[in-house]
């Protein structure tokens, strides 16, 4: 990665039909870091991610890649810098993992250009990094959920972009595979300097893996910054409408949210105030 690409959202309003989903939102993606977007269902976080990947044209405002409005750049040129893994991509019946991953080379190929050794190299690298080399000749529909998600990430890696956006990459995975995928993304970030932006549902995993945490509420940016600053019980109440206790995660030291449901009374053994103060830092 020679130079870091920048991605900014400037005063963007998004909507479908006459429904406004995201309202005049500003954000800057820190280059070379992992950014995680969290928020309640239907708060506009997936819509925001689609706009950041130029799949949705803003009603007003602009998404700016390397200082230029995304919608003024050729889509194939963007695809060499910025990749997106949608929430539920479809694999054609029976396609082999290596063939699926090969399709990530599309932005690097012209109408008439042939498949080259460099393309094979990129595919092999992507398979190796996602630990799917052994699966290369297997049909995608025979893979387990975790393997399949790694194959899709391999496709995005074969695209060789500096920025990768992912919409809930851990949905439908059991907890060990969720951690597996997030560890893989962290490796990519630390080893290759990839800028990663993802939407996640699980607040505690978000807090663990994010360098930069963004909380979106009702189409607006509620808080953004270091997880320690963003993830407080106040923010959880305001964004998710839920009472919670936030304590330091004994494993990672990152903030950890403990939801308080109607059926759970406050335990007396842990002094609430000291802990949440500690989490806020």
């Amino acid at each position, binding site marked *: 990665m020679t130079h870091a690409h920048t991605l900014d959202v400037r005063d963007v309003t998004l909507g479908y039909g006459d429904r406004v989903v995201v309202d005049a939102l500003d954000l800057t993606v820190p280059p070379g870091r992992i950014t995680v977007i969290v928020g309640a269902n239907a708060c506009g976080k997936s819509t925001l991610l689609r706009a950041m*990947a130029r*799949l949705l044209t803003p009603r007003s405002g602009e998404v700016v890649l390397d200082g230029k409005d995304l919608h003024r750049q050729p889509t*194939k040129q963007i695809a060499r810098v910025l990749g*997106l893994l949608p929430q539920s991509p*479809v694999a*054609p019946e029976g396609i082999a993992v290596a063939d699926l991953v090969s*399709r990530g080379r*599309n932005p690097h190929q012209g109408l008439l250009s042939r498949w080259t050794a460099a393309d094979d190299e990129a595919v092999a690298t992507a*398979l190796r990094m996602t630990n799917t080399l052994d699966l290369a000749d297997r049909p995608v529909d025979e893979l387990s959920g975790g393997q399949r998600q790694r194959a899709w990430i391999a496709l995005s890696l074969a695209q060789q972009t500096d920025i990768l956006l992912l919409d809930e990459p851990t949905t439908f995975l059991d907890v060990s595979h969720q951690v597996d995928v997030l560890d893989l993304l962290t490796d990519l970030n630390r080893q290759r300097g990839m800028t990663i932006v993802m939407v996640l549902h699980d607040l505690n995993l978000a807090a663990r893996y994010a360098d930069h945490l963004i909380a979106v509420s009702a189409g607006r940016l509620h808080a953004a910054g270091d997880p320690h600053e963003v993830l407080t019980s106040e923010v959880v109440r305001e964004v998710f409408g839920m009472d919670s206790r936030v304590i330091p995660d004994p494993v990672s030291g990152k903030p950890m949210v403990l939801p308080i449901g109607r059926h759970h009374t406050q335990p007396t053994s842990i002094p609430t105030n000291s802990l949440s103060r500690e989490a806020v830092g």
Partner: protein
Amino acid sequence: MSPRTATAIARGRRRRGLRRRGASALLLTGVVIVFAVSLMVGHTFYGPSEVLRVIGGDTVPGASFTVGELRLPRAMLAVLAGAAFGLGGVTFQTMLRNPLASPDVIGISSGASAAAVVALLVFEVDGPQVPLLAILAALATALVIYVLSFKDGLVGTRLILVGIGVAAMLDSVVAYVIVRAAVWDLQTAMRWLTGSLNAAGWEQVLPLALAGLVAAPVLLAQGRNLDLLQHGDDAAAALGVRVESTRFISIVTAVVLIAFATAAAGPIAFVAFLSGPIAARLVGPGGSLMVPAAMSGAVLVLTADLAGQFAFDARYPVGVITGVLGAPYLVYLLVRTQRAGGSL
């Protein structure tokens, strides 16, 4: 990166490519064989040497007329119409990620038929205006289906359901007009009902060949984009595909191709619908199905026409034979959809 891994990947890719090319070569051989057979076989049998001499331009008593004027245009029309239906059909099926999304299932062929039958029997229009009207009607039908089913983007299943409704409406128009028609008009009108090669002549072959020359390269150039659209609109767009323009170009070109084929041979039942799945079975996953589907369509129409002419006591139009083949597959797909909970 160790170069050995890349070599292994390349080897796997080449092995799968080899299978696809092998199956394609087999299909091409099939087209050539059935084409040759349909030039030789008939009430009088002509050997390969006679057929070749006729094609070479020599005058062979008897054969020059039977092969040159009857069998050759008929076989050419079978190949071109079959290829056009196959290519148009697989374009729709790939684009909408659903084998049910074939133009003959979603009413585009019905639009062409309805316009032709109404023109022939109600307004008593004749000659080259009829195919022209059929082509315009097919485009209009596609537009209506597209507009009716477009809401926040295009969803395959919604388009298919709207299309099946539109097809039912248009088919009832055809049925109504034919029931009311005078007996002596029926012969011409019937071709628009099931599709037939009985009236095949060079005047049908030529316009379709020209349309194919223009449309096929346009569709083939969209091949890679269409393959990427199979991953879903968002995934394709993320890989640099211009989704809306790919879809627009593909729909218009495929509809024009289907309409020209329908104008030349009638809506030969289920060829567009069957060719893609047959090609997929033969060549396997991972590559473009467009050329294999075109060849499957050609083999299908050629074979069905031969069977319709000679396999039974009575002579049946080609569309009856393909209809008998296609209907059970349609039922199978619908049953499978039901079981899979609506996803194909």
